[in-house]
């Protein structure tokens, strides 16, 4: 039943991964004056080329730290990182930082949340794309510039030959995010991580950017990780979904499964707090009670138990024992003490009717 692989197992450590990207038991801890921050604790998932993974969770659930750890962009001086990250047969956690650097930008690239602060204010958009391209390609500036203009055109920026010499502050928010995407895609990465790519944008622009990312993913055939707190975004794009809570992956499954048959009470809560067009407008959203836990003093047992409505159904397991991420039918995994039977009944009888009462 337990599908996680122990890192201490020497046989496992020697094994490589057949998947394009496999994250095994990734833990990232930050020692601080207040105590150990367990930002990621632990997370495991796999991703194939051409597929899209959505990582969903509240602020501070460890989504961004996970992605930064994959790129090796976590703070090396104070982060304690363990577990394995396999990218196309290369293990990244224990790798020489210089090796990870050579992969960064070329094999794996990242799109950041706020394109205004993520682009250097003193260099033109073109210069920044040219720089990204020339790090990994020995070409002249003129060639790189043509490539930059080409990339800007492909992400839908009008008059790219003129806009290439503009500074980030001369672009609108949506255009900046397109330029950011052009920069990330300039070296044709096989893995693209988008960290809240649409959070800083208008709703109308969000849809455009999501369409663009889907089109580009088809065109480039890359694997895509979308990190977001917006379930609408993952519903739009993702093939698989990881739901994170307090640094742990608490549910992992195909997008359709997670939306149709969510297993974890926290996922139910997320779905309940999401506005839906197929729900009557007069209905109130159902918020998750309580607040996200401190990552320094994570609640014992299941981290979600203080906010969970079903805590009394497991006979006292929830506050004491950390549940394992257990695979159910169709590879759908969940980290919860409720039995399959209990979850199915709770979902069918108590949660679903509330979510779809007008349907």
């Amino acid at each position: 039943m337990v599908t996680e692989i122990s890192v201490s197992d020497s046989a496992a450590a020697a094994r490589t991964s057949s998947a394009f990207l496999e994250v095994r038991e990734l833990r990232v801890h930050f020692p601080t004056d207040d105590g150990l921050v367990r930002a990621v604790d632990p997370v495991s998932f796999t991703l194939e080329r051409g597929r899209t993974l959505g990582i969903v969770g509240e602020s501070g659930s460890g989504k961004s730290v996970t992605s930064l750890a994959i790129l090796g962009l976590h703070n090396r001086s104070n982060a304690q990182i363990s577990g394995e990250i396999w990218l196309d047969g290369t293990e990244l956690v224990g790798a020489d930082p210089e090796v990870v650097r050579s992969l960064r930008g070329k094999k794996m690239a990242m799109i950041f949340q706020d394109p205004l602060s993520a682009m250097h204010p003193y260099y033109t958009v073109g210069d920044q794309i040219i720089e990204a391209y020339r790090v990994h390609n020995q070409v002249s500036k003129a060639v790189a510039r043509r490539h930059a203009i080409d990339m800007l055109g492909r992400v839908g920026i009008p008059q790219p030959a003129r806009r290439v010499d503009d500074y980030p502050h001369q672009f609108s928010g949506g255009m900046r995010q397109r330029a950011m995407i052009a920069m990330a895609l300039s070296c044709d990465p096989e893995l693209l991580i988008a960290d809240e790519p649409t959070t800083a944008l208008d709703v109308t622009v969000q849809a455009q950017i999501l369409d663009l990312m889907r089109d580009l993913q088809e065109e480039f055939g890359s694997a895509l990780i979308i990190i977001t707190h917006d379930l609408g975004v993952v519903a739009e794009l993702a093939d698989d979904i990881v739901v994170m809570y307090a640094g742990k992956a608490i549910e992992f499954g195909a997008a359709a499964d997670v939306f149709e048959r969510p297993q974890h009470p926290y996922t139910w809560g997320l779905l309940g707090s999401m506005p839906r067009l197929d729900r009557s407008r007069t209905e109130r959203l159902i918020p998750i009670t309580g607040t996200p836990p401190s990552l320094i003093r994570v609640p014992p047992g299941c981290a979600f138990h203080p906010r969970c409505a079903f805590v009394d159904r497991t006979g006292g397991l929830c506050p004491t024992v950390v549940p394992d991420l257990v695979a159910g039918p169709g590879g759908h995994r969940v980290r919860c003490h409720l039995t399959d039977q209990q979850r199915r009944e709770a979902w069918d009888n108590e949660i679903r009717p509330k979510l779809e009462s007008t349907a």
Partner: protein
Amino acid sequence: MVVVSMITFAIFFLVPRLAGQTPELMAARYVGPRARSDQYHEVAERLGFFDPIHVQYWHWLKAIFVGMEFNYGNGVEHCPAPCFGYSYLRSTPVWPDLLERVPVTASLAIGAAVIWVLFGVSTGVISALRRGSIFDRVSMGTALAGVSLPIFFTGLMTLVIFSYGHPFRITAPGSSYTPFTENPAEWAYDLILPWITLAFLFAAAYARLTRAGMLETMHEDFIRTARAKGLAERAVVLKHGLRAALTPIVTIFGLDLGLLLGGAVLTESTFSLPGLGKYAVDAVMRQDFPQVMGVTMFATFFIVVANLVVDILYAVVDPRVRVG
């Protein structure tokens, strides 16, 4: 510039008047203590001290552009344009004196500036990157000493250590200046101690400023983006980090250099360098009003120009400042 000239004029003509100095007393400064009081009156009249303020100002301003004839008793003295005043004590116009002293002050200021920028900024960058390390603590401690210790202390210390017969002796005592065009090696040799002394003061401030700026910018999102591109750490730090942290440094640098070009008073006095600062001090000691006015006007000019240059540089350094 007009404002500058008005302020300079006001300081030296108006303020003494308001403070109760009579034209005769002012004239006394020009003719020396042994003159009789009726001579004071006569001189004051000839120098136009009884004229209304605006007339005096006009005469003084006009002299800068067309020159002036001064008649102060023993015949007419000619002061050709640009006439920044005529020293009655020395019987020389001020302008040639100033011109003669500019190269000394410029050599001192620019040489020191090169040293302090190189050392200050690089120390600041390394300190920021290794925050809390021994290097950081030692250099920031030294920097604190640098900004706190006055020139006449550090200057004398360098003289004692490097000049007066100690084992570290590398150069002769100050008070000499060889023009660069005459002998560059000699020029540098004579100036090395003043450079070090002056640069120490400024490098300390620049190191702290750079360190603070770098600590801030290295946490910016665009630094993470630069790393995400796969750039080498060196390029991330210098091209992205330092570039962004440089804006306030450029500002301060322009203003500091402008200030120093008008005369590094303490350094020049400590090392007896015949620059503008020393000239100003000597003029003040002698109460030679025209000389003090001339050098003040000149120094003010540099400061105003430096401000202008800094404003223009802003647009070069930070594209967001550019209009359109």
